[in-house]
């Protein structure tokens, strides 16, 4: 990997947004994901490489550390911020089609449920790993999921639920989604959700952490 791509990955992993950012303290004054991405583009590196061999690598590393409880939500947020700042520079290439995202992932917290921290983390991680994410927010009905799939053909769906009272809504949403679009993969997660529950309702995938979702989604396009 070229040196600058490794630096970009490092900035994302450690949440170094730009030169100005005081975080992390031991990188004070150094260039961040923002400047380095711009520099990489200026030196003629392919935007696709910057994304997949730089930014995404950093995001993957933080995802693994988060899964292992080595870092926590604040550090992940910093990584996501570094990532999204860098992505701004790549936007024109997404629009022109020079850089392709891996696919579209629709996510929402299911009807009746207002918890959004875990859902947001999954959303950031999946996006940071090269997917386009459509975040439908919280308290999302089956209809909304189905409409979003219609608007985004070929997409996959993630359902989040933090309550036993709302987890049961996953089953209904899953049925509606599959009826409208059988090929759409449905991933589920959240505090009370388990592998057993996934099997019981027949969802495609369960993971206790965002990195699992990323790995599964990537396996679909590998």
């Amino acid at each position: 990997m070229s040196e600058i791509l490794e630096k970009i990955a490092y900035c994302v992993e450690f949440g170094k947004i730009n030169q100005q950012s005081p975080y992390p303290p031991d990188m004070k004054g150094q260039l961040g994901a923002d400047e380095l991405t711009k520099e990489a583009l200026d030196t003629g590196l392919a935007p696709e490489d910057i994304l997949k061999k730089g930014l995404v690598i950093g995001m993957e590393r933080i995802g693994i550390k988060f899964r292992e409880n080595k870092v926590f939500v604040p550090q992940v947020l910093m990584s996501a911020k570094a990532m999204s700042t860098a992505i701004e520079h790549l936007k024109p290439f997404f629009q022109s089609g020079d850089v392709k995202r891996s696919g579209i992932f629709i996510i929402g917290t299911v009807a009746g449920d207002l918890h959004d921290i875990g859902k947001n983390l999954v959303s950031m991680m999946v996006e940071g790993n090269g997917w386009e994410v459509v975040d439908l927010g919280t308290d999302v009905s089956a209809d909304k999921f189905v409409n979003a799939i219609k608007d985004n053909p070929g997409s996959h769906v993630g359902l989040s639920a933090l309550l036993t009272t709302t987890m049961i809504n996953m089953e209904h949403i899953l049925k509606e989604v599959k009826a409208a679009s059988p090929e759409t993969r449905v991933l589920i997660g959240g505090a009370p959700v388990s592998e057993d529950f996934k099997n019981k309702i027949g969802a495609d995938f369960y993971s206790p952490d965002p990195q699992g979702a990323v790995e599964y989604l990537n396996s679909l396009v590998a």
Partner: protein
Amino acid sequence: MTKKESFIKAITFRKCFPVPYVIRFTIEAEERYQSFLGGTFDEILDTGSYAVFSQTNSGWLEVRPGYFKDYFGITWNKTKDRTLGIVDRYPIDKPSLKGFQFPSADDLPVFKYIERNNSCFPDHFHFLSIGFTLFERAWSIVGMENLMQWMLLEPEFVHDLLDNIVEYNIKLIQESAKIGGLDGVRFGDDWAGQNGLLIGGDLWREFIKPRLMRMCDAAKAENLYIGQHCCGKVESLIPDMIEVGIDVFDPFQPEVMDIYDVFKSFNGKISFMGGLSIQKTLPYGSIKEVSDASYKLLDELGSQGGYIFSPSHALTGDIPPENIREMINIVRHQSKNF
């Protein structure tokens, strides 16, 4: 012995029979249980709970249908979740306190609840329950993601914000204590999710712990016992909670820690309240499973002192009323002596 005396006995690690217990309901669960019983239902009288809670999460002003302003002037949307709701709009969106007015704790609706509980339940253990104590209070003002990012990017601001909250809390404790009748204060602050701490131990120790200690000192100065409510996988912070002076920890969620192991490790240093699963046993278990789990808690933990029986959260609306009735029957009519 009064319920208050039993409760104190248990949280000071002395064997106490019957084992004291606390059962609380969300609005949805209470309505369902009430209609199952087909009459009126009182959370304290009809469960026989040992503690009453004068809560700062009550007495909010309804500003428009379903929307309530809390003591900090924050509007909560309770149209979906009627017990607590979610913040409608965070009043601070930049790392600056300019223009934000912290409330004074001179005259709060909770003071009336304290008086009322004093006269209705003089024999119960009486908690001042500060919902959204510190970390949660901070995120209710600035938003959870902002708070977490600013801990790293704008630490000075976060320290300042938290200090202001602590000043208010200490005043609240002191003013409440002046009324008399309180036995304890319970802090409510969720620091963890199902898989681990939200902000991690390092940031917790930097931002939360020293302030928690100040609040504990203020409570001890008023001769109050201290309860700490914290959901999620928070086991790694128990030694710190002991160090700052927490007496009783809840809700002791059995899905995220081996509660029997944890109890054994810390018994005599901190007491525990909770333990009956509201993620598994209560909503999905059979009556027999509810009964077995309840007896196990009473026999193995309750028999030793240092334990208050309770579900691992206020009961939610999905729990079959039959299971609730079974649990209440068991704890109300404890017969086994140890």
